[in-house]
């Protein structure tokens, strides 16, 4: 890569950053995300993982509201809600980000292959994405998780392999427009290989779109994780916000109005999902050429 190209990319990155700073909602989302990522990374400093297991919490009161057990009360086994909430953030963020990475990689490979090679490859891959778009997502994830078994790895895999078609379609459309550009034709006329064109022209051009799309895929993955864990398909050995809701529901917390148990995990899911969506929409408005005019609001 030449120095000129790098300089150009640095300038483009700086422009994006300036535009992003001007987007108040995007910045607010980013701040919320930073808080949650901080909580997930420094979980051992602010919470006690021993307290997640009922064998270590026999001294605690059970069903204690926040007023009786600081800061957020305990569940039916005396496990503090605060520690579960803090460690739960790790699973939700990990599943959201890892599943999105899988979906983005599959989606980009399929989209680039379909758009770049066209013809039969395109027809077959298009059909395949259409199939995956049509198959109802949550039931498919349920069936896969039921067959593969409940574990963190499987839940990431299941959400990842069911979430890629939207990315594939977006990438394909963008590749089709980039392919028509003059500099690609010029490059081809000068004898450049497909690999060269893809690496130097196509991929750099679709990267911004992929980044914006990835940011918007994470919240969907986090919501899916919450639902699947609530249905009992999460990792039984790790606490997540979804599994907290499942525990609360099956322990009868609703009838006992133990709101301190099931209110916080839901609020955390909303906060993280909303934050990712706000950041994603801000990035999309800046990076997606079709929205750049800014009329969509």
């Amino acid at each position, binding site marked *: 890569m030449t120095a000129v190209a790098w300089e150009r990319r640095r300038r483009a990155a700086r422009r994006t950053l300036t535009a992003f700073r001007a987007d108040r909602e995007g910045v607010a989302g980013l701040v919320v995300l930073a808080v949650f990522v901080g909580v997930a990374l420094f979980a051992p400093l602010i919470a006690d993982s021993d307290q997640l297991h009922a064998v270590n919490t026999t001294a605690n009161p059970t069903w204690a509201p926040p007023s009786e057990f600081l800061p957020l009360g305990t569940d039916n086994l005396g496990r503090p809600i605060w520690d579960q909430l803090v460690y739960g953030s790790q699973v939700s963020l990990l599943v959201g980000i890892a599943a999105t990475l899988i979906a983005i990689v599959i989606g980009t490979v399929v989209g680039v292959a379909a758009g770049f090679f066209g013809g039969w490859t395109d027809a077959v891959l298009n*059909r395949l994405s*259409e*199939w995956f778009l*049509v*198959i*109802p997502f*949550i*039931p*498919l994830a*349920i*069936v*896969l998780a*039921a*067959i*593969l078994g409940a574990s963190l790895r499987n839940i990431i895999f299941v959400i990842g392999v069911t979430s890629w078609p939207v990315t594939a379609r977006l990438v394909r459309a963008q590749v089709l427009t980039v392919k028509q550009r003059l500099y690609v034709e010029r490059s081809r006329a000068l004898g450049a290989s497909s690999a060269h064109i893809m690496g130097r022209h196509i991929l750099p051009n679709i990267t911004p779109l992929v980044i914006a799309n990835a940011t918007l895929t994470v*919240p969907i993955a986090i*919501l899916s994780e*919450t*639902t699947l864990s*609530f*249905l*009992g*398909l999460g990792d039984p050995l790790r606490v997540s916000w*979804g599994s907290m*809701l499942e525990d*609360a*529901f099956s322990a009868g917390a*609703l*009838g006992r*109005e133990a*709101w301190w148990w*099931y*209110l916080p*995990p*839901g609020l955390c*899911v*909303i906060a993280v*999902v*909303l934050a990712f*969506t*706000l950041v994603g929409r801000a990035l999309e408005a800046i990076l997606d050429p079709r929205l750049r005019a800014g*009329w*969509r*609001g």
Partner: protein
Amino acid sequence: MSVRYAVGKVLGAFATLAFVLVFNFFLFRVVESNPVATLYRGRNLTDEQREQLTHQFGLDGSKWEQFVRYVEQTLQLNLGRSYATNQPVVDEIWAAAPQTIALVGTATLISMLVGIAMGISAGWRRGSGRDRLLTSSSMATWSTPDFWLGMILLTVFAVRLGLFPTGGIEDPTSSATGIAKLADQAWHMTLPCLTLAIAYVGEFMLVMRSSILDVMREDYLTLARAKGLRDSQVRDRHAVRNALLPSTTLIAINFGFVLSGAIAVETVFSWPGLGLLTTEALRGPDLPMLQGLFLVFSASVVVFNLIADLAYPFLDPRVRYS
């Protein structure tokens, strides 16, 4: 509409259904080891009994023979027997479907009407206080796990205030019939229906708003204004009619997801529909039941997508003549 377009769409739908069938078969057969051994673990079976059970579950013969038999049986609407209850899967799905259609269908209708009205009102006055309020609350409800919202509504309105029942479809102790029975069921349906309607309304609102924003720049709106039409006439006669197109697709897709849309919410409210059937089947896991449910869920989406594709040329002349 050209015949070619229609035939193409119908064939495409059949291809998708065929894919779902093949996918469904391999998903459950290739991974699954031996359900007979799993189900009758710890019991002494004679070889004869074992063979009979293997045959009953359709697990004897080569994979290819199994596949042919599976396709034949599915086409005859025989989806096998549930491992859990030993009843035909079709019968159980058939019995649970009406409850789901009533619940999710009503919720989809309500959220559709409310969401579209909200989207028009927000998009037409873009950037106004009302727009900001409607957009941000739609994004907030979109970000909320639907079953969690159900849990909260259940605690507030059923447990705390006692206004609604906490679950089920009717009062098991009542012997009401006719209208009284229906009223009781409607009363039981209110909270889950409200939950789903709130969960769905945001998407309709956001899609309708952005299609209104799309048509706002069109020349025909300028022309309509130049003709001296009132603002509400420009909106209702010209903007809304054109902006409704993307929403019709969304509506069709949403009706396709009616059957599978409320798995977690039905569980929260113990609403005896397909969603509750799914969560119960997960416990075994009751594989034939899951397989049958998955097939029905997918088929419903395919059918409604086909309806949307076939209806589109009637709604949009640009598709008809291109």
